[in-house]
């Protein structure tokens, strides 16, 4: 109760604070799409920054992830009412360039932020730059999907090794066997993920496609050659699991998480960003079983896992003052230096000094899935791809229906090819 009262007091202080005049202070309007566990961590970082910087005040807004966020960004930047800084998915960079919403980041900007390109992994810098090498955003992390699993339930089975990590899952059949066993044990939806469409379904599909070495886009052609068959296989695998009741029907994002924490699923394939959610629940004892996370096992020809990056971007606004821009860059620099806290949200920081630190090496479960950085499968670099891109429409309107049996896998893949190719030509 004391805790809640102090929270109330803080709210009141915040409201009265808003009404009193602000002294010589730069206010930075910040937008992000971070919900759940990593949202909590980002909000903590923001308030820590505000406490340490009496001269800069971050005013944070969290908008709905995905299409709603990027719609707001696009329209508000177009009318000059955008934020001063925002989080942005690097998978969407080609679309951002097309929409012309980002302000280029110069070397001088990086210097103001106390950073240089060498502080980051090269792949991240490339992903954040235009084709001719102009930096458009400052990378913050790499995040992928992992398998969250119920260790308690798998205890003593062939699928858990002596260290308590997943093992013996080397093919789709192995996975199906595990899930069928779990179903018999009373797990109603053995493998949960956001199966309704959207990001969750895309990440599953793309992971399975990439594990076959398949690619969406080769030389400007969508699903060329045998990539088509690989896409069909990926969709068909999910559809078979659905038909057998091994994955949930039309699970929304929140529901897919709840299925796992509510012990209706034994495995949960979702982003590293849910690590803090389960960590927090483990710590306060509300989870009721032992949770852990591993890299998605190799079930097909090669190891591969869907991955993306969060970055900080400055929206295109010709009227932004230098003072404000400097404040924004100070925020970005500070965030990079404190990215260990962000790694606590499961992510792999893009900032090398953090990743190379001793504290990071000890961070669990991050340490067990470091290998996934080598097997990361990023979205194709194209204006049809990325968060809330035309590919996401195809996922909602074709892949998800096919997974649920409203459409055959072949038809879904063929129509996907047609639609996306139409947008490229």
């Amino acid at each position: 109760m004391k805790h809640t009262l102090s929270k109330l007091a803080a709210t009141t202080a915040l409201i009265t604070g808003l009404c009193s005049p602000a002294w010589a202070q730069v206010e930075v309007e910040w937008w992000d799409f971070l919900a759940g566990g990593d949202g909590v961590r980002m909000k903590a970082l923001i308030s820590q920054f505000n406490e340490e910087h009496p001269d800069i005040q971050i005013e944070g807004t969290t908008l709905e992830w995905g299409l709603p966020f990027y719609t707001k960004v696009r329209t508000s930047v177009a009318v000059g009412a955008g934020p001063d800084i925002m989080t942005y998915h690097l998978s969407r960079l080609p679309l951002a360039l097309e929409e012309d919403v980002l302000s280029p980041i110069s070397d001088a900007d990086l210097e103001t932020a106390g950073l240089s390109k060498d502080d980051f992994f090269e792949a991240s810098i490339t992903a954040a730059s235009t084709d001719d090498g102009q930096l458009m955003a400052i990378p913050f992390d790499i995040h992928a999907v992992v398998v969250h699993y119920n260790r308690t339930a798998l205890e003593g089975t062939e699928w858990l090794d002596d260290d308590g990590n997943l093992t013996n899952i080397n093919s789709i059949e192995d996975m199906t066997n595990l899930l069928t066993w779990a179903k018999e044990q009373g797990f109603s939806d053995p493998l949960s993920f956001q199966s309704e469409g959207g990001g969750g379904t895309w990440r599953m599909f793309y992971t399975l496609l990439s594990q076959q070495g398949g690619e969406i886009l080769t030389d400007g052609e969508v699903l060329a050659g045998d990539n088509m068959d690989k896409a069909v296989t990926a969709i068909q695998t999910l559809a078979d699991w659905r038909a057998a009741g091994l994955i949930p029907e039309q699970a929304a994002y929140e529901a897919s998480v709840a299925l796992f924490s509510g012990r209706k699923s034994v495995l949960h394939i979702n982003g590293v960003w849910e690590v803090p959610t389960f960590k927090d629940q483990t710590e306060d004892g509300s989870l009721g079983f032992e949770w852990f996370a591993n890299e998605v096992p190799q079930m097909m020809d090669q190891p591969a896992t869907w991955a993306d990056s969060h970055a900080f971007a400055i929206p295109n606004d010709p009227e932004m003052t230098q003072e404000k821009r400097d404040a924004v860059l100070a925020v970005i620099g500070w965030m990079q230096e404190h990215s260990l806290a962000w790694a606590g949200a499961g992510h792999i920081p893009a900032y090398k000094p953090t990743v190379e630190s001793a504290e990071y090496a000890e961070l669990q479960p991050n340490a067990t899935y470091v290998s996934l950085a080598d097997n990361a499968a990023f979205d194709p670099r194209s204006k049809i791809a990325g968060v809330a891109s035309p590919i996401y429409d195809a996922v909602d309107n074709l892949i998800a229906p096919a997974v649920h049996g409203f459409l055959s896998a072949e038809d879904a893949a063929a129509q996907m090819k047609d639609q996306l190719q139409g947008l490229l030509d």
Partner: protein
Amino acid sequence: MTAKQGRNIAFSALVLIAAAIWIFPLYWALTTSLRSENRIVSDAGVWIDELNFSAYIEVLSTSKLPIWYLNSVGTSLIITVIVLITGMMCAYALSQLRFPGRRLLYLVVVASFMVPVPALYVAQFVLMSDLGLVNSWWGIILPQLIVPVVVIVYKQFFDAIPKEMREAVLLDGGGEFTLLFKLYLPLNWGITAALAIITFISAWNNFFWPFLVVTSESMMTIPVGITQVNDSFGVFYARMMALALLAAAPVIIGYLIFQKRVTEAVMISAGVKG
């Protein structure tokens, strides 16, 4: 007790049960909001058996709900005041004065009923952008000032006021403004209150326009704000229901207090006299 009385009681009971079922969603939201998150997803008893206010405290302390209240109250009040004053003045002129273009104006106002307002949102958004009003109170307010029904209803009521009273004031040397504010308005306080309520409710509940024109969390009105945070609560159903009920509380309480007026207002706005 006669058979007829018995039938009446049975009938009343039946209707009451139907009404209770009708209101059940609100009751269920209340029940959910008063439970701890873990109980909600485990067992689902129908009765309120727990008075756990943590969801309310959590919502009030983590969301910007207080600021959204302020935005909603502020914009809705301004809209109501401007709509009533301008509408009343225009209706008075249409009803009592002869001037060129009078019939045309009235016709345009009546015809404007047929235009679906959301069809204009693209152009109105561009206009607000040109005026630099995107993401501001005025951006929310201005396009909502078009409420032709206010003009039409006022005109009908002004038409019904006997001419003799008007002549008396004019003979005393009063002008049109004196007439409007000293005679016509006081005679129509009832209708003014009704129109104010109906305008206020529709401004308060408008979702689509504020949703388009507002970009930052601190400018959002209640209906828009609560949809933006539901994702950041994740699977916390108690908090979502607490949020929904807190958002609805002002209109629910307002309705329960001014029930008669609200009912009257709805009927008048549809051109039906109760």
